[in-house]
């Protein structure tokens, strides 16, 4: 029996097309349609129910040491250009590996205070990751790992107008938005924490507000006690809908994240060694990108794996896509079959003009630019491929030409300074 988020009846009343994802019945799209939902996140803002994601707290004297050992990102070298340590109020992206270097799940780790961290993992992964961390804790008495699955609700507000749409609901927006860079957060979802006074809605609801998301665009994730979810959702939408705030389902989330080159756990990263992929920043490489700056679970396997696969992003030449998966085939320029397609979606906000990919948000887009969309995604191959090289992706009768690219949707807003977005 699939699980439901507290907003399930709302999605159904809005006549969303529903599907099972990660064990939860979630909206794929609303009657607006996934195309307009995707575009709304580039032009205005979208609102997503992401309560299927799981949250774990890790606290105690051993907390940081345990995360340093189990998480691929080096928490002592991860913030900004100078690679300073993770501190209170900041977040880092990485993965949890098995000893053989394969991926259990990816995650965002946030430092709430010293010795207290919040770990956000994917739907259904709260329990297995909690167990994994417990198994690797040296002394259970010095670390407490709590799985908050289904006890928190999460709403993502993503798009260039996200701050403007959120502002009227915050008790003290000036204080909240001041000094809030990408991958930082403020507040806490539990009233008992002194941090909960950092971010409250005007009705007093305490939230953890983070400048993160899964769309590649400017925006926030709002973590709160599950009891507040419906109320906050309705409040945001009631005030924001006429101003362009669009409810978005998982289809738009999938196409937005792919265009932003973000991996989907258990699809683009999974049971193969976590190396040779576009997410090198999730690994603790030194400046030269050669050696690891820390010891962590799975490191030996990554350093010594024989014939590891390579994962690359690709962009097609029109909007057509193929079904990804084991039946798909990737052929290199010499005509050899070299792998399979992990993800293939259409980013409807982009298109090619002459040699270049533009987005509807590109300031330098050609006049009258009206994208039809481009297929894009990730491939997993057994041989290195050069950026710019042309491949064929195939499934069944359909064969498409695609290019290995370093980036997919240009001019994304996720990292823009807050002052430009208010």
């Amino acid at each position: 029996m699939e699980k439901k988020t507290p907003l399930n009846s709302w999605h159904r009343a809005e006549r969303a097309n529903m599907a099972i994802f990660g064990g939860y019945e979630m909206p794929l799209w609303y009657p607006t349609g996934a195309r307009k939902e995707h575009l709304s996140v580039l032009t205005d803002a979208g609102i997503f129910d992401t309560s299927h994601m799981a949250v774990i707290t890790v606290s105690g004297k051993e907390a940081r040491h345990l995360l340093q050992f189990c998480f691929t990102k080096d928490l002592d070298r991860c913030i900004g250009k100078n690679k300073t340590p993770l501190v209170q109020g900041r977040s880092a992206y990485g993965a949890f590996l098995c000893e053989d270097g394969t991926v259990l799940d990816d995650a965002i780790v946030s430092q709430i205070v010293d010795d207290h961290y919040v770990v956000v993992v994917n739907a259904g992964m709260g329990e297995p990751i909690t167990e994994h961390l417990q198994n690797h804790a040296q002394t259970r008495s010095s670390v407490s790992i709590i799985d908050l699955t289904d006890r928190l609700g999460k709403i993502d507000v993503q798009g260039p107008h996200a701050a403007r749409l959120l502002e009227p609901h915050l008790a003290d927006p000036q204080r909240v938005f001041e000094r809030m860079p990408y991958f930082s957060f403020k507040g806490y979802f539990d009233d008992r924490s002194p941090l909960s006074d950092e971010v409250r809605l005007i009705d007093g609801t305490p939230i953890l507000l983070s400048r993160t998301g899964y769309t590649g665009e400017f925006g926030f994730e709002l973590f709160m006690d599950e009891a507040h979810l419906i109320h906050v959702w309705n409040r945001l939408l009631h005030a924001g809908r006429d101003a362009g705030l669009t409810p978005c389902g998982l289809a738009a989330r999938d196409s937005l994240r792919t265009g932003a080159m973000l991996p989907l756990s258990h699809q683009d990263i999974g049971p193969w060694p976590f190396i040779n992929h576009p997410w090198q920043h999730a690994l603790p490489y030194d400046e030269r990108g050669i050696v690891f700056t820390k010891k962590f679970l799975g490191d030996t396997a990554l350093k010594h794996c024989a014939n590891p696969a390579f994962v690359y992003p690709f962009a097609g030449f029109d909007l057509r896509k193929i079904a990804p998966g084991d039946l798909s085939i990737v052929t290199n320029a010499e005509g050899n079959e070299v792998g399979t397609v992990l993800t293939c979606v259409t980013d409807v906000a982009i298109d090619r003009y002459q040699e270049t990919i533009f987005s509807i948000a590109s300031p330098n887009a050609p006049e009258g630019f009206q994208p039809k969309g481009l297929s894009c995604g990730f491939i997993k191959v057994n041989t290195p491929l050069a950026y710019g090289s042309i491949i064929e992706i195939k499934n069944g009768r359909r064969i498409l030409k695609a290019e290995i690219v370093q980036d997919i949707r240009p001019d994304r807003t996720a990292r823009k300074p807050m002052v430009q977005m208010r």
Partner: protein
Amino acid sequence: MKEISDLILPDNVKYAEDHEWARSEGGAVTVGVNDYAQDQLGDIVYVELPAVGDTFKKGEEFGSIESVKAVSEMYMPIGGEITAVNEDLEDSPELINESPYENGWIIKVVPTDEHELNALMDKKAYIGMLKGSE
């Protein structure tokens, strides 16, 4: 997602199991995908059409329809020769979402065997099939 009771299912077309519809218009039979199919597929972004003059047997794949979600094959509800394709779908595939039985028609077919059209489901039988698969 539409409830079965909300689906637009005209009385003057016949229904195939794969959610295509067929409507006799003089000598030719017009074929498209029905309201249930377009609702399930979501925003349609591309339609791959056969060439005029192609012939197919009943049940053969004649093209594909691509939504934001997936690529789906379309199957001939009846056998016959393609005499026309809806060229408007090239620039406006969303016509299938907006008007699945009129502006969003897909092909016209001269049937090989008239009986194949009669053998397709009527609205009542089709609704029965949908309810059975719920």
